[in-house]
C-alpha cells in the first residue's frame, strides 16, 4: 500500500511538468500581453515607451527560458509571485476565491449525492416501472440542461416569483460572505448555484448508480442472499449498493475536480468570485502568472482527487488490494 501511494505521488511530478510546459507555451503563443491590455486596452493615447517599461517591470522582456525557469522555481519554492494585473500575491488572490469554490463544490456534491443515490437505487429496484421512467426522464433532463442555463432560469424565476407574491423582486446576494460571518447570507447566495450545478452532476450520478446497481443485483451473491431469506433492505443497502458505488465514486471524483475550476459560466451567472471567474479574467487580461498558477492548481486538484478516489476503491471493495 505504501509503495503504491509513493508511486502515485511521484507520478504527479511528470504530470505537473507537462502541464507547466503546455500552459507556459500556450500563453506565449497568444498575441498581446498584460501591459498592452492594461495600458492600451481602452483606446486612449499611450506612449509605447510606457508599455515597454511595464513589460520590463513584469519581466516579460527576459528570454522565455528564463521566464520559464522563474515560473518553475517559484512553484517549487512556493513563491508563486504576483498577479501581473493587480500586483497582489497570487496566493492571496487564489486564497480569496478558493474558499468560495470549495464550498460550492462541496455543496453541489452533497446535493448531487442526496439526489443521485436514492433516485438511482429506486430506479434500479423498480426497473421498468413508471417510477423508473420518471427518474430516467428527470436525470436525462439534467444531463441535457447546461447548469448555467438552469442558473439563469433560477434567478429569473426568483425575480419574477418574488415580485408576483411579495411585490418586490428578490435575487440571491451578489457578493460572498463567509459562513462563519453570516451563515444565512452565505447560504442565500450559494444554495442556488449548488442546486444548479448539483442537478446536472446528480443526473450523471443517478444514471451511473442505476446501471451499476442493476448489474450488481444480477450477481450470484445477491441471489444467494435472497435464497437465504435475507431482508431485501439489507441486501440492497449492505451488499448491493456498496459494491455498486465504485463507478459512482469515480464520477463524483471527476465532477468534484471539475467543479473546483470549471464552473466558469455558472460563476458568472451567479456573480460568484470563484476560481472559474478568476480563470476567465486572468486569461482575458493575459495575466500570464495568474493563469499559469491556476492551471497548476487545477491539475493538482484533479490528480489528488483521482488519487483519493483510487484509495477509496480499496475501502469499498475489499477485493481491491494495492501493492
Amino acid at each position, binding site marked *: 500500500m505504501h509503495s503504491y501511494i509513493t508511486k502515485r505521488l511521484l507520478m504527479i511530478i511528470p504530470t505537473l511538468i507537462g502541464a507547466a510546459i503546455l500552459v507556459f507555451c500556450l500563453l506565449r503563443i*497568444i*498575441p*498581446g500581453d498584460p501591459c*498592452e*491590455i*492594461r*495600458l*492600451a*486596452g*481602452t*483606446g*486612449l*493615447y*499611450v*506612449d*509605447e515607451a*510606457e508599455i515597454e*517599461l*511595464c513589460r520590463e517591470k513584469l519581466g516579460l522582456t527576459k528570454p522565455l527560458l528564463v521566464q520559464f525557469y522563474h515560473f518553475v522555481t517559484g512553484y517549487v519554492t512556493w513563491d508563486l509571485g504576483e498577479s501581473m*494585473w*493587480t*500586483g*497582489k500575491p497570487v496566493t*492571496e*488572490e487564489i486564497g*480569496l*476565491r478558493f474558499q468560495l469554490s470549495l464550498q460550492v463544490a462541496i455543496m453541489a456534491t452533497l446535493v448531487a449525492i442526496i439526489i443521485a443515490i436514492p433516485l438511482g437505487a429506486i430506479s434500479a429496484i423498480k426497473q421498468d416501472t413508471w417510477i423508473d421512467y420518471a427518474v430516467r426522464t428527470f436525470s436525462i433532463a439534467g444531463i441535457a440542461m447546461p447548469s448555467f442555463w438552469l442558473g*439563469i432560469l433560477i*434567478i429569473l424565476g*426568483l*425575480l419574477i416569483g418574488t*415580485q408576483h407574491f411579495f411585490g*418586490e*423582486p*428578490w*435575487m440571491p*446576494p*451578489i*457578493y*460572498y460572505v463567509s459562513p462563519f460571518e453570516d451563515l444565512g447570507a452565505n447560504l442565500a447566495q450559494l444554495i442556488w448555484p449548488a442546486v444548479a450545478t448539483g442537478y446536472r452532476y446528480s443526473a450523471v450520478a443517478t444514471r451511473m448508480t442505476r446501471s451499476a446497481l442493476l448489474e450488481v443485483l444480477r450477481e450470484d451473491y445477491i441471489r444467494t442472499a435472497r435464497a437465504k431469506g435475507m431482508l431485501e433492505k439489507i441486501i440492497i443497502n449492505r451488499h448491493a449498493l456498496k459494491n455498486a458505488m465504485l463507478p459512482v465514486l469515480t464520477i463524483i471524483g471527476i465532477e468534484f475536480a471539475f467543479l473546483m475550476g470549471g464552473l466558469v459560466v455558472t460563476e*458568472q*451567472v*451567479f*456573480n460568484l*468570485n470563484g476560481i472559474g*471567474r*478568476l480563470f476567465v*479574467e486572468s486569461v*482575458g*487580461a*493575459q495575466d500570464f502568472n495568474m493563469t499559469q498558477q491556476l492551471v497548476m492548481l487545477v491539475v493538482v486538484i484533479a490528480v489528488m482527487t483521482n488519487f483519493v478516489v483510487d484509495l477509496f476503491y480499496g475501502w469499498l471493495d475489499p477485493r481491491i488490494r494495492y501493492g
Partner: protein
Amino acid sequence: MKPSLIKQGIAAIAVAAFAVGAATSAVAAPKKGGTLSFVVGSKIPSYDGHQETTFGMIHPIRPFYSLLIRVNPSNPSDPTDFQCDICEGAVPAGAKGGTEYTFKIRKDVQFHDGTPLTAHDVKATFDKIIFPPKGVPSSRKAFFMMVDSVKAPDDYTVVFTLKFPSGAFIPSVATPFNFIYSKKDIDTHGYEWHKKNINGSGAFKFVEHISGQHVAGVRHDGYHHAGKPYLDGFKAISAPKMKVRLDAIRGDRASIEFRGFPPKARDDLVNALGDKITVQESDWNCVLMATANTKNKPFDDIRVRQALTLAVDRYEGSKYLSQIAIVKTVGGIVFPNHPLAANAQELEGLIGYSRDIKASRAKARALLKEAGAEGLEFSFNNRGVDQPYKVVGTWLVDQWRKVGFKPKQRVQPSPQFYATLRKKHDFDVSIDFNCQSVINPIADVTKSLCSAGNNYSQCENQELEDLYMQLLKAETAADQRKIMRVYEKKALDYAGSSITLWWYKINPHRSYVKGWSIAPSHYLNQHLDNVWLDQ
C-alpha cells in the same frame, strides 16, 4: 386687455407658479445616511489614477480622492462648466495672455490620514502626472504638452505656467484621473505606493477591497465640502456580466450602475419596476470609427477610403441602431453639441454626412470605379464585444456592401484585436474608437493626427499636424472654432478614420438614488459626494 384674457393670463401664471412650486417641492432636501451599493463591470488593475485608464478603477476609487477642479456635479452635461474642488472661488482664467493659471488652495482640506492638504501636494501630484521621472508611468502626460512648469510659491498657491495659451488646459486639469496625492506619501513611499494604497482627501475613506468582489468606503467626516457627503458609505460590487448587473438593480442588490446599459435593458427594467426606476440619458464622449490601413493597397488610395465613408448612411443608422445598441448621435470629430462641434448645416457639408445618401453612394461607386477597386474584397477587423462593436460592425458591413465592397468581418477577442491594431497591422479596415473623459475637443481630436500614438491608420499627413498646432495655440473660442472646422474637414476628407456614430449613455437606476446627474462620460461625476438615498 379683455377680462377673459386677463383671467386666462392669471390662470396661466397660477398654473406656472404651481408647476414651479411642485417642481421645487419635488426637489426634496437631501437625506443623510445609508450605503449606496453599485455594480461595476470592469476590474481594478491598480489604485493609481495617474497610471490607469479604466472606469473599472474610477468608479470604485474616485470617491476616495479629490481633484484640483472638476466638472460641475450639478451640471455635468455642460462641457464648459468646471468648478473648484480643492481650490477656492471660481476656476481661474489664464493671466499673462493665457499662459499663467493661479489656483488658490482651500485651507480646510485634509487627507484621510489627517495631514492637511497644501499647494505642495498639488504640485507633487501634477509633477508626477506631467513630468514623471523616468520609469514612472503617466497615462495623461500628453494632455499637458502645453505646460512649462508647476510651482507652489506658498502653502496655498499653485501656479501653472504654460508654454503657449491653450483651450485644452483647463479641461485637462479637470480630468477625473488626476487624483491629488499627498507629497508626504510620494516622498516617503515612492511613486509605486499609490498603486496598492489609498490616502486621499475625497468624500469617502477606504475600508476594504476584496479582490474581484467589492470595494467599500465610509464617509470622511472631515470632507471639505460642507455637509457632504450624504451617504454613510458605499459598496462598489464587481459584476462582469451585464445580465448580473441588470438583475442586481432589478432585485435591489445594487441601486445603480454608472457605465450604461443598452436600450433593451432599460426597457426591461422600466417594464418590470415602473416608477421605481429612473432613467437618465445623455450623449456619450465615445465614438466608434472605421479606420483604414493606409499602408495596405488599395487603401493607400484616398478615393477608396472616401468611398468607405460615403457608403454609410449615418442618419438612418442612428434611427435603427439606437434601438438596439448604445450608439445614437450623428456627429463629426468633435463631441456633438459642444461649442466647437459642427452644427447640422456644417455637418451636412462634410464628406459622408449628406442627407442625400443615394448621391453619396453613387459618388462612392464612381470613386471606386475610378480607382479600379470595384467589388473590392477586404478584411474588416472587429472587437469581440457586443455593445456596440459587433452591432455597429455588422451594420457597417451591410452599408459597405451597398456600394459593391465585399468586406469579411473578423471578430477577435480584445487582446488579439489590439495586437492587430497596434503591432501586427494585418487588417485593411478596422473598428477603432475614441473614448475620453472630460470633453476636451482640442485634446480629443488628436486621434485624427497621423503622429498620434492611438491613430492606427499608419498615415502621414503634415497638413493636419500643422493645422493642429494652430488649433492648440488658438486663444479665443472663435478662433478655435474656425480652425476646428478646417481641421475637421481635412481629417474627414483624408478619411484615414471615418466617424460612425457617437455613443449614447443610458443609466436606469433605482428611483431612491438622488443627487447623481448623468454626465457625458462614464468617467465623470463619480465622487459621490452629492448622492443621497431617499429611503
